[in-house]
């Protein structure tokens, strides 16, 4: 008598007892929900991969100025692959990088095991900072500057790809947007 698509046959359905299958499952599921909540909070203390969510308002002009200053101070050589300057800011300090149509610049050189305050922003539209092959992904947009303290734990050559569609055409565009980070021992 009655189905899911007809009026409940028992008008007092609120008082019907709940059967064991459901009670057991709800208990297990709710306990797991509480655990997941606790774990996400706890990882801020027990884990080494967290976002501090430090961020500032900026403007593309102001941010571009910081990039220019950084390049003047810390350029160490020209890159073999692209001929562009490679910037190596000192460990422990601030590092500025920006997404712009269609590249991530500057090319950086960092040291393994040292920490850097990496600032990420965009000079035009939304971009995605995607460090590969580590697979670390952040959103970047103009007017906001996010600071993440990064400590590379492996040496090597890393690519920065763009994870957010950012316009462009067939020859140059979102699909050609790249940057690079060298991590040396």
């Amino acid at each position, binding site marked *: 008598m*009655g*189905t*899911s*698509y*007809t*009026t*409940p046959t028992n008008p007092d359905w609120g008082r019907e007892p*709940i*059967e*064991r*299958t*459901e009670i*057991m*499952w709800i208990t297990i*599921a*709710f306990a*797991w*929900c*509480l655990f*997941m*909540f606790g774990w996400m*909070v706890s990882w*801020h203390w027990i*884990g*080494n*991969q*967290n*976002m*501090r*969510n430090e*961020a500032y308002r900026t403007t593309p002009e102001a941010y571009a100025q910081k990039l220019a200053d950084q390049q003047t101070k810390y350029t160490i050589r020209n890159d073999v692959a*692209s001929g562009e300057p490679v910037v190596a800011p000192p460990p422990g300090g601030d590092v500025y990088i920006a997404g712009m149509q269609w590249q991530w610049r500057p*090319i950086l050189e960092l040291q393994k095991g040292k920490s850097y305050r990496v600032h990420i922003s965009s000079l035009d*539209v*939304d971009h*995605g900072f*995607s460090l590969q092959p*580590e*697979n670390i*992904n*952040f*959103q*970047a*947009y103009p*007017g*906001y500057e996010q600071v993440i*303290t990064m*400590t590379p*734990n492996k040496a090597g050559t890393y*690519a920065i*790809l763009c*994870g*957010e*569609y*950012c316009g462009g*055409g*067939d020859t140059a*565009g*979102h*699909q050609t947007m790249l940057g690079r980070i060298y991590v040396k021992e």
Partner: protein
Amino acid sequence: MTTIAMSDFRVDPVSGLKIHNQANTLVKANAFAAVVFLMIGGFFGLGVALTRMPEVQLLKPEMFYLFLTAHGIVALMVWIIFFEMAVLYFVGAHLLNSRIATPRWAWAQFWLMVIGALMTFVAIMQGNSSVMMTSYPPLEAAPHFYLGLILFAVGALIGCFVFLGTLVIAKEEKTYGEGSLPLVTFGGLTACVIAIFTIATGALILIPTFLWRVGLISHIDPMMYRVVWWAFGHSSQQINVVTHISIWYLIAGLVFGAKPMSEKVSRGAFLLYILFLQLGSVHHLLSDPGLSSSWKIFNTSYMIYLAVLASLIHGLTVPGSIEVAQRKKGINTGLFTWLRKAPWGNPVFSAMFLSLIGFGFIGGVTGVVMSVEQINVLIHNTMYLPGHFHGTVVSGTTTAFMAATYYLIPVVFQRKLALAGWAKLQPYIYSLGSFSFSIALMGAGTMGLQRRQADITYAGQALGYQYPELGKAMLSIGEIGGVIMAVGGVMFILIVLASVFGGERIPEGSAPWPKVEDADVVYARSEHKKHIGLFGFEAPGTFVLAMILFATLVLYYFINFKYLSTIWTLS
């Protein structure tokens, strides 16, 4: 009110439902428009799939982004929301034996949505609005891209109020007796409440963006846009979830004569959605600058995962209600006999059950894991995303809507299903495609492949990067799944068109489907009323299935944290 004559209704001989002719026409119109847009959306999806295969690379980048934008808007918004309008009118008018409120406004809903969808579609086809479905400023689309979406949303909002009006009429005219709303209609009401919130949020962000594009507003803040847009963009997926879960319950009732294991539990779970589901929109902002961790955690856990709990509950109670019904009807031996003896050749059931499995194991498990604040760093904007949400909106929602369509063609269109042999196979082919697509793309995303990418090879770039071979192979496999999905989609559309235009007419008064007895009626009649179930559980098989899902979720959760712990230290 006195002008309503009995001749405005017909009685469905199987369900006994009184069907209001005007409501029926509106269900037909919305469902038909939905299927047409599914065809268009699917076409663009196939173009995307064929471009992502490195061996084929069908489209040049600019055309690829146009296709991707069209696919997102048409398949994710237009097809699904049109079908949801049909579902709302069906669960409001048909299931309650009621006339539909203000049919003229309902037609305004229909035409506004048609005009809006076409306007946005034209903007995309003109080539200067390839901004993806999300259209993040400062990227610019043509003004009528936004205007079309606004009109479409206004239409949907009108539809929500027509549905609410229908509920009021049905209650006043006592068309469904004195009791509570049926559970399925209660689910529809839940979807409607969420839809109203969602559409209002959409207006809140799309109207200023439109005004910005016509020059009346100077600046749209990119962060504000993302925060408000996702309260619309993600919440609209929650409408889909609630609607397809209502359809699961509906089909369990129609095919098995099942009733909810507990009205209280199932309705309580719907209520949890209304209270907490909206918070989940913040998943999309986990790696954004300027938002605090406590705000992110509060929201993305849906306030301590209470909306996840609701989905876990429905995931058990829907198959559980089927198991209980089967056992009451005499299939009471073993753990899974009830499932083995289910009508797997009936596409209404098979599509519904595949939707349940796909949504739970693929869309659901991965959705919970990827929306953990820290795990998101590994996943944000990778191929994992399309993998995940095809698990929810294709394997889950679209497949459930296909199941509903198979049931409704005889009931609403009064036509027999044509190409019945194809219809038997179609849910399996479609799900094979969508399951393999989702799983493979999530694999590719875990290897770092980025979504929304016209060329994954970075060919000819000075700073070029080669993705791991395994990741590229996964993408190719996934896109083969995409092509299989397209085959299943084409089959579905041909079945619908052949049935609606060429299917054998079902004369007034003849049964559209074989009569299904309520499980309780059969049980009451049976001679020795054995206690159903095993070990004191009425639905032991379902409980085992739920524990398999649980184990999958726990294992997958910790695998991801293990992976996370190996990457660069971030703080």
